[in-house]
């Protein structure tokens, strides 16, 4: 009897309990390990495929603005270079000469990108015919071919020539879209949350609205795409494929997330603060403006950033409103046709050319880096300004 009450390490039942606990702990550690291994495998795969895209092979050539080059750009190059230089580097020469007649007859020495297959050859991804391989190896030794950091990946828009393709137009498109999303969803979301939390009476109607908002947050995003198409494009005639339509559509998707997180942040402000302010004679509006809102702002911002990060990675609704388009030049306004980073990755992933594999992976690396930054900012805001009561 005594043994049973105090227990002892030798009691078989206690031992069994300890074993059970150990087993359970082992399961949780295994689960964590599996999750971690998957993430590591994913990152290694993407980075090992993508890091080469941040480098590119360039060749030093003389560009001769001669008469033949006025018609076909390739003739501006020495004959043995025509197969090596990217077509993208010379195709605009006739236009350049037409736009700047004083160029005719001059020559210029310049580093230009190589044809993508040569670039891929130096990266070890593709084979070249033996004579060509020998020729480029020779040029490499002579210092005529070099490998440099691929700035163009960040400063150029999409291209069908893999050696020229970059993410610039997609990044600008993403910024425009997120800007519209923020302008649209933030005020409406925060205001709705304030009304529901601070002003609305607790009755059947507001309960119904609450359930619906929570439900909306779980609706598949493609539905919002269809809604965006019906409302913004077909009813209001907003331009298809534009950042405006994309931003508003993603705004609809982000709205419930902002409302829910704002309400949670407002609810976290303890009642004594409100009661204290009322006791000093503040109106409800003053209480919200001067006390509740400033105190809950970090929470609201965190929720908004997380909502935006989610919107940033979204493609499904944007397919419907026509944003999976080929946009080589960055849009100049929210009314112009634009594409976004995940859509760019999607486009590259379906290219037959092997050289786009590294572009796809590099696009994913950039997208992950941006999302990581956004989420880190959210965590930072919460840590820095969070108040405990």
């Amino acid at each position: 009897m005594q043994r049973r009450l105090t227990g002892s390490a030798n009691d078989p039942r206690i031992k069994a309990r300890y074993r059970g606990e150990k087993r359970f702990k082992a399961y949780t550690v295994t689960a964590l390990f599996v999750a971690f291994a998957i993430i590591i495998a994913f990152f290694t795969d993407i980075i090992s495929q993508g890091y080469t895209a941040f480098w590119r092979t360039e060749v030093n050539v003389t560009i001769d603005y001669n008469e033949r080059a006025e018609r076909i750009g390739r003739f501006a190059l020495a004959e043995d270079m025509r197969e090596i230089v990217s077509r993208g580097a010379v195709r605009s020469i006739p236009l350049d000469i037409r736009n700047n007649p004083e160029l005719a007859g001059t020559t210029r020495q310049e580093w230009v990108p190589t044809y993508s297959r040569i670039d891929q050859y130096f990266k070890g991804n593709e084979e070249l015919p033996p004579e060509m391989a020998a020729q480029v190896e020779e040029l490499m030794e002579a210092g005529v071919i070099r490998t440099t950091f691929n700035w163009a990946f960040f400063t150029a828009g999409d291209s069908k020539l893999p050696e020229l393709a970059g993410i610039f137009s997609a990044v600008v498109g993403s910024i425009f879209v997120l800007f519209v999303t923020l302008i649209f969803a933030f005020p409406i979301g925060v205001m709705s949350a304030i009304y529901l939390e601070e002003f609305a009476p607790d009755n059947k109607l507001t309960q119904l609205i609450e359930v619906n908002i929570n439900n909306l947050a779980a609706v598949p995003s493609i539905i919002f795409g269809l809604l965006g198409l019906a409302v913004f494009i077909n009813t209001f005639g907003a331009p298809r494929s534009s950042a405006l339509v994309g931003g508003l559509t993603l705004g609809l998707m982000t709205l419930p997330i902002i409302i829910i997180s704002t309400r949670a942040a407002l609810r976290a402000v303890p009642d004594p603060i409100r009661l204290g302010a009322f006791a000093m004679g503040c109106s409800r509006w003053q209480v919200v403006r001067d006390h509740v809102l400033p105190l809950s702002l970090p929470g609201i911002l965190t929720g908004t950033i997380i909502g935006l990060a989610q919107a940033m990675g979204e493609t499904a609704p944007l397919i419907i409103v026509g944003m999976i388009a080929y946009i080589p030049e960055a849009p100049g306004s929210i009314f112009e046709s634009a594409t976004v980073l995940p859509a760019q990755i999607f486009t590259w992933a379906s290219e037959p050319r092997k050289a786009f594999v590294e572009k796809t992976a590099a696009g994913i690396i950039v997208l992950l880096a941006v999302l990581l930054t956004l989420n880190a900012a959210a965590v930072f805001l919460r840590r820095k300004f969070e108040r405990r009561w």
Partner: protein
Amino acid sequence: MKTWKTSALAVAAAVGMTAVTAVEARDQIRIVGSSTVYPFASYVVEEFGATTNFQTPVIESTGSGGGLRLFCEGVGVNTPDISNASRRMKPSEFDRCMENGVTDITEAKIGSDGIVIAQSADNEKLDLTLEHVLKAVAAQVPQNGEMVDNPYTNWNQIDASLPDRRIEILGPPTTSGTRDAFEELAMEKVSAKYGFPEEYTDIRADGVYVDSGENDNLIVQRIRENKDAMGVFGYSFLAENADTLNAASLDGVEPTVENISRGDYPVARSLWFYIKEAHEGVVPGIDEYVSLFMDDIMIGSDGLLIDEGLIPLPAAEAAEWRDRVANRVNVERSDLE
């Protein structure tokens, strides 16, 4: 809450109104249509933007049907100027165009695309017939005059000359134009000939034919790893991966550029685009874009698009289409029937 909803709508409406004025004048060509033509058309679009002073056109991949639906919606700046298609316009689509005032349409044929049935190069090359393919993918097959659920699990059950290998086919899903073309050319067209009902297009759903997504790269990757499986995809993906894949010949014809171009390879389709003539002179650059696309530099037998996987038209046919397009010959309903 109602007030919030109304104000949200009001904001959206206000934004929408400004948008309408913003699109009134358009100096950028808008192109929609087939995802098969998209890689070729976007190549031309880029070239056009880089070599002329016109703005780079906007090109969107909507699928052939989706593209022609938008195209035939009417005349005006918020409808596309050009629609690409991986099949010819249907008479019903033509009628809809006419009803909506899109009366003058030029049709342009740019080349062909073959659909290949390929496998990992570790396997020995297969010589298949369309009958083999049909029996491998059909949901039901004729046996003793009756249609029964497809019993074939191994290739040698279909024909003793084929290897004793599990049938596993990775192909495009129903939303894909490639699937449409495969169903039409490898099933519908020949089903009656091999004892199936007329225009039979049901693909088996017992796990032998696996829908593998719109992305042909994915199918290529998977058949490289899964050596038993065969993949169904566009010729350009075969050309780019010729070192790791081999394609089956169909009815004794290899899927090569020459055979597809001549029309000998049975599972090949033509690629097209349609021009809305009413927009010429309103949206600048359409004529120049069309001329560039039809030029030998692009679609000729040594053209730039051939490197991208386009199968060129035979020279005589190419010349004929170039003339038709240059003279803006209107497409007639009788051409499409």
